[in-house]
């Protein structure tokens, strides 16, 4: 009986740790080893190394106390449930949703938005881990096909997101250089290299040109995103303040409720997009 119970316990324990691998061999091995180790207390109770003394005890050795293991077992059960819940609800889903939303916003906003490098990093780690796990599956296994397809989809998402940002960095290079806060460290390196390769030589060339070209300064070469451009926006929350739309000499105030959709100038909702209260659609 003890064998059976101890076989289940590590399975739960390892089940919660290796729930993604589904590696049954490891489970079975662990069960065997742990169950055997527990029987070592026979020797402890008998205070002798002889097998005979160990198998003919008059009382139960300390580690064979069932109630202790039952309590531990139920604790493990509860905690493994919690761990799984945590993984599904706040691990994969939220990060993926955040990246998807950031991707759409980045695609639709005129300016470059604050980076989400920490989310990307978490997702890349998950992808790496998942890739290792998938390697252990057989290639023809249906699950392997689905996993591979999901990895491809997420990689596409991340690639497209980063590429959109790089496009904006190249287009608005000098303007972005003045507003570096939105860039991730890697993007900043890219921007600096891009500037030294593109803008600096252009300026050198202009310096030698006669006429108006010779007097060009960096400010004139700068391309700034047009924040007055219009966007389609959807609010994720009831906004506490009204937003102000400048229309020539007039100013208009609008209240925005949760889930309402509007066409508005980007400049009016810029702050809300940057802190994720409004998303672009």
């Amino acid at each position, binding site marked *: 009986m003890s064998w059976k119970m101890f076989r289940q316990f590590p399975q739960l324990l390892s089940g919660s740790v290796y729930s993604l691998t589904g590696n049954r061999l490891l489970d079975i091995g662990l069960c065997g080893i742990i169950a055997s180790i527990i029987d070592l207390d026979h020797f402890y109770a008998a205070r002798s190394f002889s097998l005979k003394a160990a198998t003919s005890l008059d009382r139960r050795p300390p580690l064979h106390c069932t109630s202790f293991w039952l309590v531990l077992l139920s604790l493990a059960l509860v905690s493994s449930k919690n761990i799984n819940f945590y993984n599904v609800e706040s691990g994969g889903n939220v990060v*993926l949703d955040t990246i998807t939303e950031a991707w759409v916003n980045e695609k639709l906003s005129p300016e470059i938005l604050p980076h989400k490098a920490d989310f990307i990093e978490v997702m890349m780690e998950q*992808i790496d881990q998942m890739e290792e796990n998938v390697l252990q599956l057989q290639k023809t296994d249906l699950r392997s096909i689905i996993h591979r397809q999901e990895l491809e989809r*997420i990689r596409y998402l991340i690639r497209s997101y980063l590429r959109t940002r790089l496009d904006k960095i190249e287009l608005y290079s000098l303007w972005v250089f003045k507003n570096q806060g939105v860039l991730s460290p890697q993007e900043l390196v890219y921007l600096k290299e891009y500037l030294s390769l593109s803008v600096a030589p252009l300026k050198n060339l202009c310096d030698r040109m006669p006429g108006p070209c010779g007097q060009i300064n960096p400010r004139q070469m700068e391309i700034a995103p047009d924040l007055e*451009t219009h966007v389609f926006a959807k609010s994720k929350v009831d906004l506490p303040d009204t937003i102000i739309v400048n229309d020539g000499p007039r100013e*208009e105030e609008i209240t925005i409720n949760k889930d309402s959709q509007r066409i508005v100038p980007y400049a009016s909702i810029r702050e809300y997009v940057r802190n994720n209260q409004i998303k672009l659609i």
Partner: protein
Amino acid sequence: MMNTAEIEFLAEQEEVTIIPKFTDQRVVHLIAGDIGPFRAGIPCVVPIWVAKTLRKKQKCKIVAPEWLDIDLLELKLEEEKASRFFTQMPSEHYMGIAHLLLSDDSDIEHADRLRLAIKNIWDVRVAKARASADTFLRGGGRHAGIDYLTQLEICNLRPLLLDALDTKYRLSAPLENFSALNTSVAGSSSLSQSFSSASSSRRSQ
């Protein structure tokens, strides 16, 4: 700018019910969440892209979502016709999902009629969107409510409407608010933008 393929990518993340033709008791731990276990004949909810993959391998039958029903869609069409505003659609990606599920070898019955019904609703909505965009442009103003307009419809409307709005704003805006040299818009709209800034500066002279 988003294109229709990218919006279809988002639609593929929506969920759909399938009836598997195989049994696999193991839960598949996807990054986006768990799916399964699959039991032959027992319905089970998966993302559409999984359903499409399984379907391609003849491993499942796709069940139409509740709203993909001829009678319901016809009611919806009447409601859409009767209302001045956009009505709420049963799904944010109704067109994308219908397009994905009603392919040529679809499991769903009356695929042709369903496609037609969806297309009718789409036509009414897009016509309405064009008409209100026209009124909006004529009427002036820089903002408008577009509740319940879905992403694909917006995508259909976006290039023309936003460009027109931007151009109109630049033509009417006080000159000190922008400098033609320092402003640019990414991609395709830059051409019309340079046109608009050129014409506005000519006007000011």
